[in-house]
C-alpha cells in the first residue's frame, strides 16, 4: 500500500495514576480499542470513533480522547477531510459511506435568528399562572365552514372534518427504522411518545410485533423499498407516511447494510437475512405528482379514509412547488426534511452536498402555500437538525406546524454523534443489532430520558411563547414578525421573510 496509514482520528490515553485496571473500558468498547495484555491495558487508538462509551463508564475518569492528534499541513482548500476521502477512494474505488447529518461547516440559520419578547406595551404571559396551549392538529383543515342555523338559535356544523392527528406538544420523533436502530431503542422511543401524547415514525423497516401495544402513537412509513408493508401494518398505524426522500440523502433511497439485517429485522422487513436493504431511488410506481396522488388515495382507500397520510420529501431547491403539488392531493401533511437530517448510512457526497437547510425550505413552502391559498390543505412538519426548544420555536415561526426530532432523541439515550452508525457496532445499543450491544439499552430508563427531553423542551416552548405574549401555538405559527435575522444576508432574509435585528 503506497499510501500507507493515515493519521489517527483520535488518540486515546489512560492516565496510569488514575486507572485501577478494572477493565470496564475493555468490556464497553465495541470497536476493539482496548485489550488486556498481562496486567496492562493496551490501546489501539486507530479503532476509536469517540463514542465515549469507555469515558462514560470509567469509574476514575482516567481516559482521555484527543481528536486529530497529528496535524496535516494546514490548507484552507485541501482540508483534512478532503485529503482523507481521496486516500479512502484511492484504496477502495468505492462510494464513501458516512453516518449522522451533514458534516460540513455551513452556517446554521437557526443560530442567526433571534426570538422576540414583550416589554411594557403588551404583557408577557406567565405559563405557570395562565393557560398555555401547545395542542396541535396535523391534517387537512377546511378553508371555511358550512353551518346550518337551527330554529332554537343553535348552529349545526355541516362540514365534515377529515381525520387529524392531535398532539399535545408540537414535537414528534422522526422515522428511524428497526434495522437502522435496535428494537430496544425503538421500544424506548415508543414508550416515551405514548406517555407524552405525541407520535413517532416506524421508519421504512416495518413494525415489530412487540411494538403493537404502542401502535396508536406510531406513524407507519411506506418507502420505495416497501419493506414490511402489508395491510396489517397500514391498519396498525395512527397515520401513514410516504417517504419520497430524506434530508441526509436527497434523490436516493435508504441504505441498510446487511450486517444489521439479523433474523428479526429480516422478518419485520420481509427480506432475506444478511442482505443489504437498498431502497430504490424513486418509488417505481411514482414518476409524477399524479402518481403520488394515486398512491396517497390508494393508501387512504386501503385504510377506509380513517388515517391521515403524510408525504415526506427532502428539502431541495424546488421544495415549495413540490409541496404545493402534494397539498393538492389527498395528503394531510408534508414533511420537509432539511439537509442536516441524520441517517444511519448515507453516501458522504450526498450527506454533505445535496439539499438545503430546513429553515429556508419551510419558509418558502409556507409562503408558497399561502400565495396559492392552499396552506390549510396540508400541515407542515419540519425535520432535520432540530437541536433544542429554540429551534422548535423558530421553525414554527417560519411556518411549520410541528417538528420531528431524530438525533436529539438518540442523544437523550446516550448517542454521542460519533457518526459510525453504518458499522452496526454502536456501543450504546442504539444503532446496532448485535444482541450483546442491544441489551445495553434498557427501554424503560431510556424512555424516561427521552420523555424528560421532550417534556423539558415543551416547558421551554411554553415559556418562550408566554414571553412573546402568545398563549396559543397557532399564533406563533408563521409569525415571522416575532423573529429577527442577526447577520443574515438580505437575500436570505427575504426568503425567510424576516427583518434584521433592530428593524
Amino acid at each position, binding site marked *: 500500500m503506497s499510501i500507507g496509514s493515515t493519521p489517527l482520528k483520535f488518540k486515546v490515553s489512560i492516565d496510569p495514576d488514575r486507572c485501577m485496571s478494572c477493565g470496564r473500558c475493555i468490556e464497553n468498547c465495541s470497536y476493539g480499542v482496548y485489550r488486556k495484555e498481562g496486567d496492562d491495558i493496551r490501546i489501539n487508538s486507530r479503532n476509536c470513533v469517540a463514542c465515549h462509551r469507555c469515558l462514560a463508564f470509567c469509574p476514575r475518569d482516567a481516559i482521555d480522547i484527543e481528536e486529530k492528534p497529528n496535524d496535516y499541513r494546514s490548507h484552507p482548500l485541501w482540508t483534512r477531510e478532503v485529503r482523507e476521502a481521496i486516500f479512502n477512494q484511492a484504496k477502495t474505488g468505492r462510494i464513501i459511506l458516512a453516518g449522522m447529518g451533514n458534516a460540513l461547516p455551513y452556517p446554521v440559520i437557526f443560530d442567526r435568528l433571534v426570538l422576540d419578547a414583550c416589554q411594557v406595551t403588551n404583557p408577557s404571559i406567565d405559563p405557570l399562572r395562565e393557560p398555555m396551549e401547545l395542542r396541535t392538529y396535523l391534517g387537512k383543515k377546511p378553508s*371555511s365552514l358550512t353551518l346550518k342555523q337551527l330554529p332554537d338559535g343553535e*348552529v349545526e356544523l355541516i362540514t365534515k372534518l377529515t381525520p387529524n392527528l392531535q398532539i399535545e406538544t408540537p414535537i414528534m420523533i422522526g422515522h428511524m427504522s428497526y434495522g437502522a436502530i435496535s428494537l430496544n431503542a425503538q421500544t424506548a422511543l415508543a414508550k416515551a411518545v405514548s406517555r407524552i401524547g405525541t407520535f413517532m415514525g416506524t421508519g421504512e423497516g416495518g413494525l415489530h410485533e412487540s411494538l403493537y401495544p404502542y401502535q396508536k402513537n406510531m406513524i407507519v412509513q411506506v418507502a420505495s423499498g416497501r419493506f414490511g408493508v402489508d395491510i396489517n401494518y397500514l391498519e396498525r398505524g395512527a397515520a401513514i407516511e410516504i417517504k419520497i426522500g430524506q434530508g441526509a440523502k436527497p434523490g436516493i433511497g435508504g441504505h441498510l447494510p446487511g450486517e444489521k439485517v439479523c433474523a428479526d429485522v429480516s422478518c419485520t422487513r420481509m427480506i432475506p437475512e444478511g442482505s443489504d436493504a437498498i431502497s430504490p431511488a424513486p418509488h417505481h410506481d411514482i414518476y409524477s405528482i399524479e402518481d403520488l396522488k394515486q398512491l396517497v388515495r390508494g393508501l387512504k382507500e386501503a385504510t377506509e379514509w380513517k388515517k391521515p397520510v403524510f408525504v415526506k420529501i427532502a428539502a431541495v431547491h424546488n421544495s415549495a412547488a413540490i409541496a404545493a403539488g402534494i397539498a393538492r392531493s389527498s395528503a394531510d401533511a408534508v414533511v420537509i426534511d432539511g439537509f442536516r437530517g441524520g441517517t444511519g448510512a448515507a453516501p458522504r457526497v450526498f450527506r454533505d452536498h445535496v439539499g438545503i437547510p430546513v429553515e429556508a425550505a419551510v419558509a418558502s413552502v409556507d409562503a408558497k402555500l399561502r400565495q396559492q391559498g392552499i396552506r390549510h390543505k396540508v400541515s407542515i412538519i419540519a425535520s432535520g437538525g432540530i437541536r433544542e426548544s429554540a429551534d422548535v420555536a423558530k421553525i414554527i415561526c417560519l411556518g411549520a406546524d410541528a417538528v420531528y426530532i431524530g438525533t436529539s432523541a438518540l442523544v437523550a439515550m446516550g448517542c454521542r454523534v460519533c457518526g459510525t452508525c453504518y458499522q452496526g457496532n454502536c456501543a450504546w445499543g442504539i444503532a446496532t443489532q448485535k444482541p450483546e450491544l442491544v441489551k445495553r439499552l434498557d427501554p424503560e430508563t431510556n424512555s424516561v430520558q427521552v420523555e424528560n427531553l421532550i417534556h423539558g423542551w415543551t416547558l421551554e416552548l411554553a415559556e418562550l411563547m408566554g414571553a412573546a*405574549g*402568545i398563549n396559543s401555538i397557532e399564533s406563533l405559527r408563521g409569525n415571522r414578525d416575532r423573529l429577527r435575522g442577526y447577520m443574515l444576508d438580505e437575500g436570505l432574509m427575504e426568503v425567510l421573510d424576516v427583518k434584521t435585528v433592530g428593524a
Partner: protein
Amino acid sequence: MCGIIGVIDRNRQLMDGGKIRDSLAMMDERGSGEGAGYVAYGIYPDYKDYYALHVFFDNIRENKVPLDNLLEKWGTIVHDEQIKTYEQPNIRKVHTPWRYFFRPDRSLMPKSTTPDEDIVTHLVMKVNAEKNGALIFSSGKNLGVFKAAGWPEDVANFYRIEDYKGYLWLAHNRYPTNTSGWWGGAHPFNLLNWSVVHNGEITSYGTNRRYIESYGYKCTMYTDTEVVAYLVDLLVRKHGLSEKLAVRALAPPFWEEIDRMPPKEQELNRAIRLTYGPALMNGPFAICVANENALVGFTDRIKLRPLVSGESGDRLYISSEEAAIRRIDPDVENISMPKAGEPVIGRVYS
C-alpha cells in the same frame, strides 16, 4: 393604553357627536394627544345607496386627479366635496380630507358574487398600497370616519363632530407606539361597512396578516388594528359566520373548556379552531367592531384590557371605562364587565 367607546341605538334613533366627544375626552388619560377618531353610521341619508369614500390627500392638485380617474374607470362619482374642517390651534392640517359618493360598475367584476363590494375593496387596497398621496380611510355606505392627529376634543372640533348625526358611533383615543401622530394611524379603521376601534397590541399580527393577505387583502397602515377589520370582513361577509361565531374564531375558548363541552358543541368549537387557527388573535386587546346592523365588543382570551358595557333603553354602550359611558348617560343601567373572549353584541331591531 388607548380609550375606546361604542354606542348603538337599536331603534336607529340618531345621536349627534357632541356627547361622544365629551365621553371620549373623559379618557384623555388613556391617550397622548397624537390621534383620535370617530365613526358614525347613518350620517349620509341622502346618499345612502352609494359608497362614501373618505380620503386624505397630501396635495389636492397633485393627488386628486389620478384618484378621480381611477374611480371613474371603475364606476361613477355621484358627488364629491371637501370634508368641512375648522381650524384648531392644536391640529396641523397636513392632509385635505375629501369625500366621494361612489357607485361601482358591477359589470367590471363579472366573476364575483359581490361585485360592488369587491370593486370597492380592490380600490381601497390598491390606492392605499400605492401610497401616492391619497389614503382611503373610510369606504362604507351611509357612514363616515373622521380622524386626525390630536386630542379627542380637538379632532372632534376640527370636524365639528356635533354636526353629524348617527345611530351607531365608535370613537378612539390613541396612545401611539407603532407610528407617531400619523393621521392614517388613528382609529377607527374601516373597510366597507366594517369599522374597528382597538385598545392593545396583537402579538399574533404576523400570523393574522399573512393569513388575511392570502385572501387578497393588503395591510398597508403600519398598524395591527386594520387586520381586525379585514378578518371580520372575511369571516362574516365572505364566509358567512354570525358575529358571535366570528368572535369565537378570533378569541376562542381554551381547549380545556372545549374538551368539557357536550359532543355537538365540542365538534363545532373544534372545527372553528381548526379552520380559523391563523385568524386567532393573541395579545392584549379590547375591541369594538361595528357594521350597519350591529355593534360587537370583545376582549382577548385572558382579558388583558378593560371592557365595560351598559344599557339604557334602546342604547347599548361599550367602553374602556364606566366613567366614559356615564358621561353620555348618567342613568345607564346593567353595567357589566364581559368575560374574556365573550362578545357583547348590540343589534338594531330589524
